[in-house]
């Protein structure tokens, strides 16, 4: 048996079966959670290349699976990346069991993770662009469930992502001819231009970022957060694959200058726009833009030295996005609601959801004692010595995000309903939110225990290991 068949084929197969069974949303999410949890445990215990033994039967998880002459390769190096991806997916699916989402979360979520890992595993890697494009198409029915009107943000999302894919295919073709060539030949410039625009479109980098807040305003908060976590992660890992593969790309200083400039623009624009938002989905969109900008800044002084910090940011980001989406979903808002009115005073009716919403925002803003702080501090100290302007922009963004947190608090605790406090969240949601708070606090208080989990995933990119 081959490892790609297990970590790509199995979730895809279960996803298709779930799609046809049309189970209730919680049941489908539960089955999907069981599958991803099993695959997480399998990746921990028996990584690709290992041997599975069950009573009298044993089989080796071969790293390579060949389809029509193309290979999908998952090696032992990919173990922690698989663990991270499947563990986070498990939490998303479990969250889908305690909050109103859609029956498509389970099947499409499994399909998305299968496409994502296939994109990271495929050789030649130019096929990855096509697989990511299929993932984008697959995500649309999740974002716009049946019988829901598609908004403009979705159309922009589909357009931008579809236009980015051809550029990456062209880049792959150009790079195929210059894998070992020295820097400076004309093809490298062409490839860099195409790659920059292609990744810019796929990763929602400035100026292609406008769909993020639009989509997160239009779609149900839980699935919006899910896609906002998964898709940029898939694209950025695909991008790191380019750095891992091409020495000349790692050594081209111009690339880092561009990453830095774009990162600064994204961080500043996202932070400042977040400060003036009153719609929580839209605010989440701008926080996501800041996070993408931060990821670019981590590797802007060198992908080898910045790689660990890039991965260290992932775990706090995941926790914050997951809890933000879960808590916002707990308020049972409607898509067209004006959050500044509807959420007014809701902290008294939904104290768990309200508290966790604020905590997750504080995490993304880099507030002390929360898991976003140690990574943000490491980024500040790194940037302040090398690029003071970038450090100042991150500080400015954090300021904007803090203002956004204060605005959220003002809305949640201000005016509106009279009367005493009550707990309106269901038991399952309360338990989940409480576990989330514990994880946030533990992540903030014991960063040396938690952050290495994310950093270990860097082993999938052996050439950019420090």
């Amino acid at each position, binding site marked *: 048996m081959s490892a790609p068949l297990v970590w790509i084929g199995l979730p895809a197969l279960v996803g298709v079966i779930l799609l046809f069974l049309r189970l209730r949303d919680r049941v489908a999410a539960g089955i999907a959670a069981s599958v991803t949890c099993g695959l997480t445990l399998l990746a921990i215990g028996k990584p690709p290349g290992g041997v599975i033994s069950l009573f009298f039967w044993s089989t080796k998880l071969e790293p390579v699976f060949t389809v029509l002459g*193309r290979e999908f390769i998952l090696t032992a190096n990919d173990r922690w990346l698989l663990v991270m991806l499947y563990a986070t997916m498990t939490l998303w699916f479990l969250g889908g069991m305690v909050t109103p989402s859609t029956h498509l979360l389970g099947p499409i979520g499994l399909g998305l993770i299968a496409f994502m890992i296939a994109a990271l595993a495929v050789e030649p890697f130019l096929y990855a662009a096509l697989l990511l494009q299929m993932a984008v*198409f697959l995500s649309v029915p999740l974002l*716009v469930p049946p*019988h829901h009107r598609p908004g403009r943000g979705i159309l922009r999302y589909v*357009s931008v992502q579809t236009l980015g894919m051809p550029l990456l*295919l*062209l880049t792959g*073709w150009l790079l195929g001819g210059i894998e070992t060539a020295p820097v400076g030949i004309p093809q490298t410039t*062409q490839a860099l231009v195409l790659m920059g625009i292609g990744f810019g479109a796929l990763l929602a980098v400035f100026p292609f970022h406008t769909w993020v807040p639009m989509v997160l305003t239009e779609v149900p908060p839980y699935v919006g957060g899910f896609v906002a976590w998964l898709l940029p992660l898939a694209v950025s890992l695909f991008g790191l694959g380019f750095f891992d593969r091409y020495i000349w790309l790692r050594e081209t200083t111009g690339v880092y200058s561009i990453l830095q400039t774009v990162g600064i623009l994204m961080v500043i624009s996202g932070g400042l726009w977040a400060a003036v938002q009153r719609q929580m989905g839209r605010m989440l969109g701008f926080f996501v833009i800041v996070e993408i900008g931060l990821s670019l800044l981590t590797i802007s002084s060198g992908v080898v030295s910045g790689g660990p910090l890039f991965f260290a940011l992932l775990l706090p980001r995941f926790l914050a996005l997951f809890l933000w989406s879960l808590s916002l979903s707990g308020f049972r808002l409607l898509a067209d609601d004006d959050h500044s009115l509807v959420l007014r005073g809701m902290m008294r009716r939904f104290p768990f959801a309200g508290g966790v919403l604020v905590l997750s925002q504080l995490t993304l803003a880099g507030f002390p004692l929360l898991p976003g702080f140690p990574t943000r501090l490491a980024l500040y100290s790194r940037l302040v010595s090398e690029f003071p302007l970038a450090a100042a922009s991150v500080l400015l963004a954090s300021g904007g995000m803090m203002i956004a947190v204060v605005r959220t608090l003002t809305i949640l605790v201000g005016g509106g309903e009279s009367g005493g406090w009550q707990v309106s969240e269901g038991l399952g949601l309360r338990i989940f939110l409480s576990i989330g708070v514990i994880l946030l606090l533990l992540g903030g208080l014991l960063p040396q225990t938690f952050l290495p989990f994310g950093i270990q995933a860097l082993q999938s990119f052996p050439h950019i290991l420090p």
Partner: protein
Amino acid sequence: MVAVDQFAPLGLLIVAGSCLFLLFVWKPGWQLLALMGMYLGVFGLVASIWPLELALVKLVAGWVSVVILGFALVGTGYEAEKGALLSGLIRLLAGLLISLVAISLTPTAKGWLPQVSPEVLIGGIMLLGLGLLQISLTTRILPLILGLLTCLAGFEVLYARLELSVLVTGLLATVNICLALLGAYLLVNMLEVRG
């Protein structure tokens, strides 16, 4: 079977005519007819590079996409907002302008993609440009999907000379069909909510 070089000029003419017609008309039926014509032109351009049987994949995938969108339109009773003749003329003029730009860009593009013949380059750039124009002029689902399909067709024409892999051809055909399916899904959703 081998490539047929003589198809390229004819393909270019069909592509140009059908894309400009697509910009000018506002009725969905006519738009889909123009899209069918466009894929015929794309087939002509690709057939000048690829063996005929492989080039046929582009035509079949394109027409399948048209059929999918057509079924969605018929099934939902979709009716486009009536367009004014003047706005159609302006779009047509903009399309002509882009076609001229495509012709003028060809020598520069030849430097980037020296393997590609001038007809195919003009056709590819024209499709990309007209598709982008279509996308930029609308916020409605059907014209947007048609614009994206046009853009993808332009890219496929240029890419055909660079990559002759059967798997890539198949995957690109799948992307086209999935995009049409997505368009159909969004159209059905929108009309259900409206209805």
